[in-house]
């Protein structure tokens, strides 16, 4: 039982990482209608930046915050490239984000090399319900909960969140009421970068990060985000956690080499299920 609880908490923590990557996807999709395939790259850039800042002697904490800002900057740059030109269709922008993600590989290899790098996180273990748990896992869970509550409040309660959502729902009408849809898209990408950055610096202590880690992050993040139809942050959290638990349980009680396959099957099932439902954000042809 103790062992099961331990696996469960590990699964939740890993799932929170997926959910954080997924939340960036949700933020960008909800505001711009673009599926941002560079989302995993933001996490990688932030994680690698954090290792460099720490190596330069910047305090832990501050280094992570700086790295998250770098992630936000990466998001903003991606946004300017992908949707900076007025009238870019979401599908075109999707391809641009994919290209930016690959281009970033070259830059990352140039700066940080090809080898995986690790980041020190919180040391030691804590007792939770009589189960020893790595403190870093608890930190991941706590930060994720805070981030998602803030996101949910932002989108569902604030006027600004509504205005941002309006951009994706009907860009035509949003412009009529004076919303600068392009600027809102930049804000969305920067927010996506920050969320990706948070995921990156939290995950880096749990698993070494290299330039191509973004693929596994985006698969998990996408599975989490699509669980909420790419628009609902809370459903993305639930999706991420379910996925994380599934992966850890397959590793623990089944065959470890099936873990990734398990998550891909999870993704496939959800996409098929989603495809049979009505899309959650309608767009109107202009």
């Amino acid at each position: 039982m103790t062992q099961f609880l331990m696996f469960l908490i590990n699964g939740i923590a890993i799932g929170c990482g997926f959910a954080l990557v997924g939340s960036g996807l949700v933020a960008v999709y909800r505001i711009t209608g673009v599926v941002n395939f560079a989302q995993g790259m933001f996490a990688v850039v932030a994680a690698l930046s954090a290792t460099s800042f720490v190596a330069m002697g910047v305090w832990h904490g501050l280094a992570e915050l700086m790295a998250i800002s770098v992630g936000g900057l990466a998001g903003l740059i991606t946004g300017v490239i992908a949707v900076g030109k007025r009238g870019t269709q979401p599908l075109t922008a999707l391809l641009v984000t994919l290209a930016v993600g690959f281009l970033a590989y070259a830059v990352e290899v140039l700066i940080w090399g090809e080898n995986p790098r690790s980041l020190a996180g919180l040391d030691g273990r804590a007792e939770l319900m009589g189960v020893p748990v790595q403190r870093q896992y608890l930190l991941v869970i706590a930060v994720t909960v805070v981030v998602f509550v803030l996101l949910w409040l932002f989108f569902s309660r604030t006027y600004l969140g509504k205005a941002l959502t309006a951009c994706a729902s009907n860009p035509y009408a949003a412009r009529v009421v004076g919303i600068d849809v392009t600027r809102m898209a930049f804000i969305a990408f920067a927010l996506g970068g920050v969320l990706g950055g948070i995921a990156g610096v939290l995950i880096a202590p749990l698993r070494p990060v290299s330039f191509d880690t973004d693929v596994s992050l985006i698969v998990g993040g996408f599975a989490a985000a699509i669980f909420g139809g790419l628009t609902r942050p809370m459903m993305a959290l639930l999706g991420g956690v379910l996925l994380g638990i599934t992966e850890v349980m397959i590793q623990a009680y089944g065959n470890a080499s099936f873990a990734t396959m398990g998550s891909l099957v999870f993704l496939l099932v959800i996409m098929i299920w989603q495809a049979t439902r009505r899309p959650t954000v309608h767009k109107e042809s202009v």
Partner: protein
Amino acid sequence: MLRVQGLARSFGGVYAVRDVSLDVADGETRGIIGPNGAGKSTLFNLISGHLAPDQGSTELAGSRIDRLPPHRRAKRGVSIVFQAARIFRHMTVRENVMVGAHLRASAGFPSAVLRLPSHFATERAIRELAEDALARVGLLEWADSNAEALPLGQQRAMQVARAICAGPRLLLLDEPASGLRSQEREQLARVVEELKSTGVTIMLIEHDVAFVSRLADRVTVLDLGSVIAEGTPAEVRADPKVITAYLGAEAEAA
């Protein structure tokens, strides 16, 4: 208030609007009439910035706006209500209208993020503004329903409320009364009259000549993308060119 000179726009070689010039005075209500395909909606889209003109200039209160994107024109006080329902789905009617107040709230963008109490005050002010606008167009009882659930006529009335919320100087109404029942038409007419009394300049596309004649100070008649007549409603109705091009067709039908 609005001066349009030599405005032209073609689609695939066919002119939808051809060399249109008109002046709308401050506080005037201008009716735009004409047969289907006369270029009325295209003209509105050129003024609001949703279409770029091939030629010509548009001035609002003395400054050129024809190079500005739609949201910048909206900031200068141009508001448009489309004939098609341009609504924000998955939002209630109230929320749809609240988005209309974006212009009034956007000054507080950083404060919305940083200074929570003042943000809540802004939020409340916007809510009151939206409810006031909804009451004026008679949609207050629908405030909490999903905007998609409204009949088409009411969706347009909601757009009018959204436009009012933005506090426009120039309001473009593209067939706001179509799909409304006579009682609702009456209510809409009163809303327009009220806006007019507060000094808003209004341009109104409408097929119902009686409705236009009641509200408009002057009427511009478009046919095949060009202005064929302009004057008071009575003058326009007596113009032989108009009778041939537009009213004549109706008279013959009747």
